[in-house]
Structures are given as C-alpha cells and as structure tokens.
C-alpha cells in the first residue's frame, strides 16, 4: 500500500465523521430491517433479498466521499495535502481509492449486521430465510455499489467543492431526479449514477416496478465504473490546473 493511500486512510480514521457514520448507518439499517422483519408477513425469498439490500451504506458513503473531498476546500487543508503530495492526480487517486475501501468496509459491517439480525428474527417467526449463496450474492452487490459510490462521491466533492451545494445536489439527484427519470424514461434513467446503475447492481428497482427496466448487474457495474472514471477525469483536470491561492 502506498504511503499516500495509507495517509488518506489515516485521515479517514482520525476524525469522528467516519466512526459516527458507521454507527448511524448500522443503527438506521438495523432499525429498518428489524421493523420490516418483525412487522412483515408471508415473506418470499424476493422480499427477504429486498430487505437485506436495504442498507444505508451506499447513500452515506456517497455523502462521506463528497464531504471528504469538498472538506479539503472547506477547511483549506487542500494546501497542506498538496504540499505533502504535490502529484495532484495521484493524491486524488489515493483519496478515491481510500473512500472506495471505506465504502466496502462500511457496507460489509452494515450488510453482515442486518443479515444477522434479519435472519434471526425471520427464523424465530418461522418465515423464509436465505441460504449462504443468496446472502453472498447480496453481499457482493452491496459492497461493489458502496465502493463505487464512495469513489463517485469524492469526484463530486472535487468538482463542486462547496460541501452544502454538493450534498444537496446529490440528494435531489438521488431522491427526486433519478427516480423520476427511471420511471418516466427507464432507457435513460437506468444509466444514472446514484440510483439507476446502483439499482442495476442490486437487482432491485427503487420504484417497486419491473426489474426488467434495470441494467444487468455486470453492465451496471461497468456503467458505474464509467461514471467514476468520468468524474475522476474531470476532477483531475480541474485539480491539476487550479491555482491554490
């Protein structure tokens, strides 16, 4: 692991934001999954899959990525970061990878926790549960989506730089624009970076509609990688030519 990447990971670990985020994400996910498992009836395997895919880690790591990169500008730490690592594109790459890793870890903790809780409750109620193969299938989808969205968040933070504007913009995109686009024009909406492609990876439509409107998981992964690549390219170009005054 390069010193630059280790430094970025250390940055993540040495503020309370990441730890707080893990706690909030785990708590929220467990509450939602616990209530769903307790209050629901006649679960099918598809229902359980959908329940176990319902973790907040993808959304939160997206916002954490935005905060982590835009925060460099907000706190004006970008200057000391660039002084320590003057190769700006490598610095951006290290930050992007570190948030992808953080997304993976966050999603792993959350998904395993909610799977354990949900399985215990459903078993106790005599409802259907999932086998190891199904659980592993859900797990990789959640991990990949969280990793790529963490990286995408870094790119958005680097492009927009204003934390509030970036976060509000992403929330509007994720909760209004993309779901609407997916409903009204699924051929376009399924390629979206915050809902369309991640839904393709999970295989669950956010509108409760036909999953056939979504991209195949492998294609969705490639599309999201494409969004991250595009974001990286734009952010790198801006970062390279930007004067840090």
């Amino acid at each position: 692991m390069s010193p630059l990447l280790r430094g970025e990971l250390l940055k993540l670990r040495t503020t309370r934001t990441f730890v707080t985020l893990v706690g909030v994400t785990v708590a929220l996910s467990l509450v939602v999954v616990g209530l769903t498992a307790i209050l629901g009836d006649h679960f099918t395997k598809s229902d359980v899959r959908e329940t176990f895919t319902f973790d907040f880690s993808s959304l939160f790591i997206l916002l954490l990525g935005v905060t982590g990169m835009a925060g460099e500008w907000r706190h004006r730490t970008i200057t000391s970061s660039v002084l320590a690592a003057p190769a700006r594109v490598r610095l951006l790459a290290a930050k992007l990878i570190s948030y992808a890793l953080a997304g993976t870890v966050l999603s792993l903790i959350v998904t395993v926790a909610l799977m354990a809780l949900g399985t215990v409750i459903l078993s106790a109620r005599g409802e259907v549960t999932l086998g190891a193969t199904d659980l592993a299938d859900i797990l990789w989808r959640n991990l990949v989506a969280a990793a790529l969205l963490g990286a995408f968040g870094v790119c958005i933070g680097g492009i927009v730089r204003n934390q509030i504007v970036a976060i509000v913009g992403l929330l509007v995109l994720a909760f209004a624009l993309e779901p609407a686009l997916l409903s009204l024009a699924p051929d376009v909406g399924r390629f979206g970076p915050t809902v369309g492609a991640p839904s393709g990876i999970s295989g669950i439509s956010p509108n409760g509609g036909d999953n056939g409107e979504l991209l195949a998981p492998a294609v969705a992964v490639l599309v999201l990688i494409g969004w991250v690549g595009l974001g990286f390219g734009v952010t790198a170009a801006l970062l390279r030519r930007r004067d840090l005054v």
Partner: protein
Amino acid sequence: MAPVEIRDLHKRFGSVNAVNGLSFDVEPGRVTGFLGPNGAGKSTTLRALLGLIRPTEGTATFGGRRYEDLDRPSTRVGAVLEDASFHPGRSARNHLRVLAVTGEHPLGRVDEVLAAVGLSEAADRRVKGYSMGMRQRLAIAAALLGDPEVLILDEPTNGLDPPGISWMRRLLREQAASGRAVLVSSHLLAEVAQSVDDVVIIANGEMRGRGTLAEVLGGGEGGVAEVRAQDPERLASALEQRGHRVERDGDRLLVLGTSPAEVGAIALEAQVALIGLAPRTRSLETAFFALTGGEA
C-alpha cells in the same frame, strides 16, 4: 546552485500582474527576509515556489528542480503558509501522523517536533480548540517534520505572543545556523531586522531592493551619509547631478550609496556650507518605505 532560485518569475491573475519578473536566490545557512506591503506579491511568489500556483512565466525552483519534481519533498522543503489550516476535528498528533505517513517519515518524529514547538501537552486535543498561536506552532511542527534543507515561512509570527515571537526568532537563527536556507516573509519589520541576514524587498510584484541586511540598511555598498546644510536644496541638486540618490528627512538629507567624505567634497565644489555631516544607518523601516515608495 542555490537551494532556492527564482528566475524572472511572472504571475498574472486575469489582468492583474501579481508578480512581475522577480529573480533572487536564497542561500544556505542564511535567513532571507522577504518584505513588501500587502498585495506586493509575496504570498503569490512563495506559492509559485511551492507548486501551489502555476507561474505565467519564469521558474521558481529548489536547486534547479520544481517542488512537484522533488523526491519526498518534505525532506527537502518545509513550508508554513499564512493561512495554515487544519481539519478542526483532528488532533495535532494525528495531523502530524498523517503527514509522517504520507512523507514516509518515522512516526517518532511526530513527538520530536511536537516537543520542539512546545505542543506536547496539547497534542491530543482537537485543533478546533487551539489558539491562533498554537495553530502556528503546529504549522511549524509540520514544516520541521521531514528535517528539511529549506524552510519557507509566510508571516510565521502571525498570532504569536511576544514570547512566541522571541521563540520564532531563535528558531530561525538555529535553523540557519544548522545550514538550512530560510526564506521568511513578514510585515513586522523590527522582527525581521533582528532575525535575517539577507533581505528581498518587493512592491507591486516587482523587485525594489535586495542584498545583505547591512547593504539594504546602508542604501548600497557605500552606506548612507546624513548631512545638514545651509542650503539643502542646492546641495541636493548638486548631489543628484552627480548621480546620488537623496532622501529628505526633515531638515536633513540622506545621501544613499556614498560616504560623508564624498558628500563633503561635492558640497565644497558646490559652495554650500555644511552644518553637520555624519555616516548614518537607516532603520529597516526607513529603507523599506524608501524602496517601496510608501510613507513612514
């Protein structure tokens, strides 16, 4: 090759010429004061040197290499910028640990530099609770982390109390005494006068004066002669006709770059009676305002 070389540096921001053709060196084992009024281009020059902004023309290098081309730059150059900022939620120790990991320095250096700047006891407190002086000390600790050959400090005494300023003065001298090249910008002229060996003075992005402190205070190699005459205007005119630079200081004339003997000879030739004639050393403030065109 000097540790710091600035050659014909230009930087334009739109239609504003922030730096216009600056050239100077910073030598090892010496503290070089970098002076100029607000907006003179000092910070822009330092940021160009550190690769934070792109020069429009010219070069600013460390031993001929741009900052971004240095291997492990923190072992070559330590920098304290005017707006040194830290993540408010991170402790001083963790801030330095991040820099140590990124710069491949032993983690033991973190405690060493914390002790060197007097922050050991506050090291585990979050930076948002730090005073401005403590932040400045932390910035200096970060600059010293890689034990660099060159120190660049932009207004390092900002926020320091009098003991802190005294500490900073000693630090600069110690760093230079150990062979490092130190470039320090400051608006506290009295402080600079006590700390520096060489001076570079700029205004409006342009060089206005450079040399050893003695040279700048003396107005040039020949020093300054202070003279009082019965007809100062006639004497001033005679001196200026001979190519000397003359400044008015009340009823006195300060003649730059010459000796009292030469002034006396010119006065005799011009048939002007002298009331007093003596060598004089200018204060740095006087030299600064004379060179930058400001008023004391």
